[in-house]
């Protein structure tokens, strides 16, 4: 295989008890009745293992909203995959956690919305923070890899120091601080979430200092807000290069946002073989090599590193998925990003009040 898949992100459900304003799930979500079965997922995991995929990430929505997550973990391990669970923690008690670990779960990523309960519950649109703290202490007592994930944005970056201290005390080995990426609900709420340049500069300094301080105890990964970057992110490390994402209905996608791109047909794994979809389906090949690239990407020396950036972001910001990612300072459409940043940075005070919409829960 020219492109060897490394990771499979399984969005096993879009149902979620949280309503986070920065959720990257699509605005049009799938209902429970459209979700594929335990057997379908098991077959997908077996095929992925045979193709040489190493990492399986069970996510959603809230994966624990499905009653068969333990079976899915077991199916993943049986297929020789390394199994990560990305969860809000809602729906996890000691018995269920033990069952997941017994089934072979390798790594838990537990999300927090803030270090402080009030804002955390506000961003999640529900009172989940106290419960999450109890889940963290349950995980800490067990021998399993534990990451704390915190999504950061304009309304919580002021407490970044507190969040890092919080993660240090949580018992996690790793902290992922991810700036919001603007897709789905997050794109809808972008004006309320994009940080200011001052906030970003301050946060980078805080993370660098913290990395020194917690060295050997806590690994800190920091995901930048690409709107402020000089060059685009190498989204998914290239379209159809290493990663695939399967949505609750079994549609196989190059990334979670790909359905926004018009004109692409995405096939369902229960109906088609995973290998065919990965290697031969037109959608996976649409932006895979460099033939789609416009200038300045086509002759850019960085094209093999960032692959022209994100196709979905190009579509969301320009209406053309085959345009250079507008966050790139060389992009013909870069001014749409610049104008957004000027607007955000000239607003002065961080806006108070809820000028955003909460993610809904599909039934």
């Amino acid at each position, binding site marked *: 295989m020219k492109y060897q898949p490394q990771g499979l992100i399984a969005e096993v459900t879009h149902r979620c008890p949280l309503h986070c304003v920065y959720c990257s799930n699509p605005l049009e979500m799938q209902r429970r009745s459209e979700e594929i079965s335990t057997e379908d997922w098991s077959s997908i995991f077996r095929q992925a*293992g045979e193709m040489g995929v*190493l990492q399986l990430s069970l996510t959603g929505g809230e994966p624990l909203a499905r009653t068969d997550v333990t079976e899915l973990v077991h199916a993943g391990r049986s297929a*020789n995959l390394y199994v990560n669970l990305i969860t809000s923690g809602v729906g996890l008690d000691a018995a269920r956690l033990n069952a997941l670990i017994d089934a072979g779960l*390798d790594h838990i990523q537990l999300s927090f919305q803030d270090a402080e309960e009030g804002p955390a519950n506000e961003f999640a649109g529900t009172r989940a923070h106290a419960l999450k703290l109890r889940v963290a202490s349950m995980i800490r007592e067990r021998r399993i890899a*534990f990451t704390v994930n915190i999504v950061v944005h304009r309304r919580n970056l002021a407490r970044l120091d507190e969040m890092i201290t919080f993660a240090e005390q949580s018992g996690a080995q790793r902290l992922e601080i991810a700036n919001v990426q603007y897709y789905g609900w997050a794109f809808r709420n972008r004006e309320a979430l994009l940080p200011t340049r001052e906030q970003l500069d301050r946060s980078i300094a805080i993370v660098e200092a913290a990395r020194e301080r917690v060295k050997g105890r806590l690994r800190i990964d920091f995901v930048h807000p690409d709107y402020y970057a000089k060059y685009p992110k190498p989204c998914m490390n290239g379209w159809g290069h290493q990663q695939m994402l399967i949505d609750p209905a079994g549609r196989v996608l190059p990334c979670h946002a790909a359905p926004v791109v018009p004109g692409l047909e995405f096939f369902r794994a229960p109906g088609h073989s995973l290998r065919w979809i990965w290697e031969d389906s037109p959608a996976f090949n649409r932006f895979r090599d460099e033939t789609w690239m416009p200038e300045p990407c086509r002759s850019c020396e960085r094209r093999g590193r960032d692959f022209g950036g994100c196709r979905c972001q190009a579509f969301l910001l320009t209406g053309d998925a085959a345009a250079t990612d507008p966050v790139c300072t060389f992009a013909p459409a870069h001014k749409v990003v610049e104008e957004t940043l000027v607007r955000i940075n000239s607003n002065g005070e961080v806006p108070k009040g809820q000028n955003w919409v909460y993610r809904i829960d599909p039934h």
Partner: protein
Amino acid sequence: MSEAVKDRVPRLAPGCRLGSAEGQEDLLLIPEGALRLKGPARAIVELCDGERALPQIVEELTRRYPSDDGTRIETEVIALLGRLRDRGVLEFV
């Protein structure tokens, strides 16, 4: 690696395990990734079982590879374990 560490017992950190399936033989699977173990690294990591301390690991490797210089083996083992510890995939108990 400090002298103190020499007497302690290394083992893989939670969530880190050696690949066992076909094609995964030289991989150390870790949260969200995999490290490729080159040369004798897999054999060394296999011996980090939470039972053996460094001297026993070196002793075992010297027994398996009698033609190699024992001091060189020890140096290599210490260097590898140090790197893996810094990467967060190995812990000392």
